[in-house]
Every structure is written in C-alpha cells, then in structure tokens.
C-alpha cells in the first residue's frame, strides 16, 4: 500500500510536467489524429521522453524498478498508431535495459509490447471510424490496465529466477496497474481538454467570421458610402464585441461606432497618423498601447487604448480605405479579434468590389432602358409622316387625329424616368401607336384587344407591352402578303394557389420560327426586368408555328394586396 502512494506521488510530478507541456505549441499535433510523418515523429519524440521520464521517476525495489513507463508507450501507440507505439516502447525499453537488473530483458520486451497494444487499438478505432474514442480517458485507463497485466505475465515468463520474479510481481503488480492506469487516464484527459479548448476557439472564430460575412452580404450594393459603412461597422461591432469600430475611405471617417463616438465624428478628415500610414503603405498596423503608446489623435481624454488598422484593398492592391478596431484602455485586444480583423478587412474589400460591380450593372440596365425608350424606329416615323401627308389631302380631320396620336406616342416615349406604369397607362401608349399603324396599313391590318378590366390598375415596368406589339407588327404582320391579324390578350391564370397575370401578343405571321428564333434588345430587356423583379419562372416566353402564329407571352405573379 505504501508503494501505491509513493508511485502516485511520482505520478503527480509526471502529470504536472505533462500539463505544463500541454500549454506549449508542441501539444497541438496531439489534439488531432494525423497520418503525417512529421506528426508521427513528434509523437515518437514526445512519448519516448515520457517513457524515459517514467523510468527515472520509478522506485527501486528488489533489484527492479516500479515505474510509470507504460503510460508513455501506451499513449504513444494509442495516438500515433502501431509503428509509433512499437518504437516508443522499444526506445523506452532499451533505456530501461541499460539500467540493468534481473528484469531488464523482460521490461524491454513488455514495454515494446505495451506500445504495440496501444497501436493496435488505434488501428482498430481507425478502421471502425471511431477516432473520437481514442481521446476517451476511460479507453486509456482500460488499455493501460490490460497492458500492465500483460507486462506482469511477461516478467513472470522471461525474468529468471522465477521465484524472485514471482515475489517482485506480488509486490509491484497492484501499485503499477493502478498508477499507470490512472496516469494514462489523466494524461488523456489533459489532451482532451486541450483539444476542446482548441476546437472551441476555432469554432468561435469561424462562427464569428461566417456571421459577419452573412450579415454584411449586399450591404455595399448601393456603393461604398457612409450609409453602407455605418451598417457594416455596426454588424462588426456587435459580432466581435470590440470597444469601437470605424471605417474610413482614403480621406475621412465614414462610420464610427462604440466608445469615443462622441468625438470620432463621421465625415471628419482622418487625423490619426497610424491610419494615414496604413493607407500610405497598405500594411496592417497594430498599436497595443503598451509596447507602442497609443493616444487618440482627436481628444486626449479618449478612453480608447489600442487600435488595429487594416487597409481595405482594391483588386489591384490599391488602398481604398481602412477598417479600424479599437479596445478601450482597461481591455486587452484578444488574439481572436486581431486575427478576425484581417479576415474582416478582406471580406469587406470583396463586398465593396462586388457592390460596385452590381451597381455598375444596374446603371447599365438603366442605360439600356433609356436607350430603348429613345430609340424610335425611324422607318416608323417617316412612314407615319408620309401617311399623314397623304391623308391631309383628302381628310384633314383624320390627319389632325394622326398627329395627335403621334405626339402622344412620342410624349410617352420621353417619359423616361418613370419605372412602373399601370397596364391602363401602357395601353394608352400602345393605342396611339396602333392607331398610327392601322392608318398606315389600312386594309392590311386588324387589331383585337381583349384585356380583363381587373388588370388595368396593375403595375408593370414601363415599355413592357409596347415593344411586343411593335415587334409583332414590324417583324410579323407587315411582312405578310395577306391580311395581318394582331391579338392582345390579358387575363389572370390560377395555378396551384398562385394567381399569375398573363399578357399575350399574337400575330398571324409565325416568322419567329423561320427567322432563327432571335430576340432583339428591346424584348431581352422586357424579359430581364420581369425576371429581376419577380424571379426566373416569370418573364417573356415566345412560341410560334410557321405561317400560323407567333405568340409572345409575358407573365408575372399577382402580388399580395392585389387579390381579386
């Protein structure tokens, strides 16, 4: 019993060393199972050392040593696999061998065997896909107990004379089994704790990063300005929990949130030398307030005590601004937030660039639409003037009407700034266009409009119907030798609890099939705008049958509040 206590005393010293080591980076490879040779080498060195340490901390007894060598060997095998286990055991065993005594050969053999047993268990868990079990202290306890029993058997078989070996085993078996089993379990528990802390940090880090990424998506789609920066700075402030967050462009503060917001005002010119330096050099600047003194450049009574300035970079590496994280004087900058800061800066830079891209794309869309509106088909204009000229001769009243329609048509074309119009308004525009075409084509065109009255107050993007109708006449009915027939239908389609508004423009030419199914810019924009607004399943669909019809159908959902 005395031996048990003595051995446990030695074990305590042994475990304190293990605990201290767990605070160093040497321990990091132990927190995960890896087949990499460099990791295996670390396992080998580390556990061989523990093996030898176990021998030195042993107690001499009857020309033999009661020890905690088995912990190193079994743990080495368990964490590093059979190969590592075998060599750790062999190394520890050979060291023991050179210390002599009648059990020298038996101890060498048994330690090697113990390492190998740990390795076999490692292999077993790996094959079963239960790597997590390796880190359980209970597993370490049981396998070490078992290994120690094997060791005792080996001593009895190998060590001579048998009587002496038998006496030794009687004395040391119980203390060693208990001390080694307990030691291995505690050792594994230290590793497990380390692993848990490590993983927790890692999870916190990635969670924070992901949440910031997720919450800031699209914030810069309206541009890199004070409004968007304030929103983003607020998100970063909430997620990181730092003292204050600031975003600047190259000249001035765009957003500041947190401690010191009373004197760090948005819109003021950057005065901090560190920020200017970061903008100048494009490098991250960290001022901890201890090694390098930090003093707020605006107000001497400012409570901020440390700052991390990270430049925001363009795709070509040019600095477009900075993001600054602050901590107040009584608080330390956590390593986590420092690392996170760099990631955030990269993320924000990308968001700004994406935002700018989206903005330009939207501008382009608007430009396209304006171009379309301004694009009056000259052929239409001059033919209309020619028609009016001819009609004037015989029917001045009708000529006057045509001029009114033409004015009306141009007036609506010039209303470029209105995004949405009601179907009724769009129909007025269409009507004036049709009146002119009907006069021009006289007996060669007939038009039938059939639109559900309930649709009239609904809003559609400007120039949705008109291009479809112009297209049907220009590329459809006007190419026919026979009479052209144009139909415009509008109705509500009920489909799986959804109400869809459908507008159709049908001509009797069917040229879309024969002319290679190409769609002009005007119709592409009609489609794009409806899809942007309502989703991919809506927009423009064109169907046709050669020589019979071309049908352009646009559809969009009947929105809430427009229930019938």
């Amino acid at each position, binding site marked *: 019993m005395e031996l048990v206590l003595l051995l446990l005393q030695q074990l305590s010293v042994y475990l304190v060393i293990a605990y201290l080591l767990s605070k160093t980076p040497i321990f990091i490879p132990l927190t995960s199972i890896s087949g990499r040779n460099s990791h295996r080498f670390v396992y080998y060195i580390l556990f061989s050392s523990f093996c030898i340490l176990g021998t030195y901390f042993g107690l001499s007894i009857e020309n033999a040593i009661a020890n905690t060598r088995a912990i190193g060997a079994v743990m080495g095998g368990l964490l590093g696999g059979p190969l590592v286990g075998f060599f750790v055991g062999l190394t520890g065993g050979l060291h023991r061998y050179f210390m002599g005594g009648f059990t020298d050969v038996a101890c060498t053999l048994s330690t090697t065997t113990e390492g190998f047993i740990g390795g076999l268990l490692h292999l077993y868990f790996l094959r079963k896909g239960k790597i997590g079990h390796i880190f359980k202290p209970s597993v370490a306890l049981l396998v070490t107990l078992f290994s120690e029993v094997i060791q005792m058997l080996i001593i009895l078989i190998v060590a001579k004379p048998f009587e002496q070996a038998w006496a030794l085993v009687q004395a040391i078996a119980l203390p060693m089994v208990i001390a080694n089993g307990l030691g291995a379990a505690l050792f594994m528990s230290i590793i497990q704790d380390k692993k848990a802390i490590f993983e927790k940090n890692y999870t916190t880090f990635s969670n924070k990063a992901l949440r910031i990424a997720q919450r800031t998506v699209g914030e810069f789609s309206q541009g890199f300005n004070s409004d968007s920066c304030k929103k983003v700075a607020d998100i970063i402030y909430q997620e990181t929990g730092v003292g204050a967050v600031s975003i600047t462009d190259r000249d001035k503060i765009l957003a500041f949130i947190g401690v010191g917001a009373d004197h760090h005002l948005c819109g003021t010119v950057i005065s901090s030398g560190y920020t200017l330096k970061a903008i100048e050099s494009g490098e991250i600047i960290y001022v901890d307030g201890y090694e390098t003194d930090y003093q707020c450049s605006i107000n001497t009574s400012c409570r901020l005590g440390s700052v991390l300035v990270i430049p925001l970079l363009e795709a070509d590496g040019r600095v477009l601004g900075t993001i600054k994280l602050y901590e107040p004087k009584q608080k330390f900058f956590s390593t986590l937030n420092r690392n996170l800061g760099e990631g955030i800066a990269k993320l924000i830079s990308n968001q700004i660039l994406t935002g700018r891209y989206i903005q330009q794309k939207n501008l382009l869309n608007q430009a396209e639409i304006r171009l379309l509106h301004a694009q009056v088909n000259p052929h239409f204009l001059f033919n209309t003037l020619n028609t009016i000229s001819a009609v004037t001769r015989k029917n001045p009243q009708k000529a006057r009407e045509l001029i009114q329609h033409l004015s009306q048509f141009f007036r609506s074309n010039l209303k470029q700034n209105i995004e949405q119009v009601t179907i009724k308004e769009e129909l007025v525009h269409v009507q004036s266009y049709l009146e002119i075409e009907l006069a021009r084509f006289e007996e060669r065109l007939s038009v039938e409009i059939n639109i559900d009255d309930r649709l009239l107050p609904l809003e559609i993007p400007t120039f949705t119907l008109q291009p479809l109708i112009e297209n049907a006449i220009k590329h459809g009915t*006007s190419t026919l030798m026979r009479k052209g027939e144009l139909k415009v239908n509008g109705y509500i389609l009920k489909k799986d609890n959804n109400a869809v508004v459908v507008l159709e423009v049908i001509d009797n030419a069917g040229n879309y099939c024969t002319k290679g199914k190409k769609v002009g810019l005007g119709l592409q924009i009609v489609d794009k705008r409806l899809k942007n607004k309502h989703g991919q399943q809506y927009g423009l669909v064109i169907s046709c049958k050669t020589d019979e019809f071309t049908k352009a159908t646009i559809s969009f959902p009947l929105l809430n509040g427009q229930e019938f």
Partner: protein
Amino acid sequence: MLKAIIIDDELYAREELNELLVESNAVEVIAQCSNAIEGLKVINSLKPDVVFLDIQMPQITGLDLISMLDPESMPKIVFVTAYDEYAVTAFEDNAFDYLLKPVESDRLHKTLKRLKNNNISPSNYSAVVTHHLELIPCSGFNRIILLEPNKIEIAMSDQTGVHLLTGDETLTASLSLKILEEKTELIRCHRQYLVNPICLREIKLLDNGSAEIITRSGLKTPVSRRYLKKIKDRFGLI
C-alpha cells in the same frame, strides 16, 4: 408622255405619290401595285418606261424585284423609301435616282426633269440588287406561291412561259431562265432547261453525244452536247 407605274405596299403612300405625279403632268401613271409580285407581272405585261419602287415590302423587297427583271428590258427605276440608311448610301454612291418619303415636290420635279431628258441613272443595278433569290414568285390557279429555289428540280421554258417543276407540282414563274440561272443554284443543261444539281440522281449518256438527266423525283431533262461538258466538269466526271 412617259408611262409610269407605282409599286408600294402602303395605300396612302401610293395615293400620295400618284397625286404628286398627276399634278406634275410629266408622266402618266398606268398602274399601281401593292406588292412586288404584282409589280413584276405588271412590268412584264405593260412594259412601263419608269417604275416608282418602294424598297421595304413584304416577302419580296423592291431590290429583290429588280434582280428578277431582265437587264435588257429594264425600265427606268426611281427608288422610293421612308428610311433605309444602307440603301440610300448605295443610291448616292451609284447615282441612282431615289425619293425620300414624305416626297418633296421640288425633289420630285428634278427627278422628272431628268427622266424627260432621258438622263436618268444607268440600268446596271448590280450594286444594290439581291444577288441570291430566296423566294421565287410563281402563279398557280388563282394564287400566288413563293417558292424556295432549293425545292425546284427543273426549270424549263416554252412558248407559254417559264415553268418550275418541283416533283410535286408545276408552277409558272414570271422570271426568265437567265435570271434564274444567275440568281439561284440552278445550272443550265439545255437552251430551254435548268436543273438543280442537288436534285440530280442520274446522268444517262446517249449515243449521239448528248445526255439525259434524271432527278430525285424521276423527272427527266435533256442535256445538250453544248452543256454536257460543263455538267461533267461540275461533278468531276471525265
């Protein structure tokens, strides 16, 4: 007085030009046509001195129409267009006469004056006309058919006109064999026959040095000695 016809698909455009021409008292409008096919027929039958021709018309444009006319008996052409940047540039380059709609009477008078002085543009319209016809206007019983040239197997001419044989039917065209030979893929195999090379199935050589072609649908056409060599060359036969 010069005899004129107007070809335009828009009623008001025809009326307007007619009024202006009547007012001018320089030409006599003998017919108005609302499409190119009618125009082609009228030109061939009435032989006008001058044609006021709209360019943009359904199916067969004014430029297609000119390419269907025999250069030998081509009337004088005055192009009329509302807006056609490309064509107008070509007219300017080749000094062709053209009028822009709405027609200005001063401009019309200048054109008419040149017409009277027989000073109007050359009759070679190759710079603007269609070189490859996509549709051939044909007349059947009380109807007009626009035939794609690749459907024609054999074209032949006799006293009654030019006939196009498709294998299913025989249609009468208002175009000469010469135009068809120039503006389509058809090749000459006899003074009075053209054959479509993609429809050729068999060339039967005869004792007298001539031959006979049998087409996909089993139609037969004679090959005269004069054209046999060309046909052989075309198909790489010796």
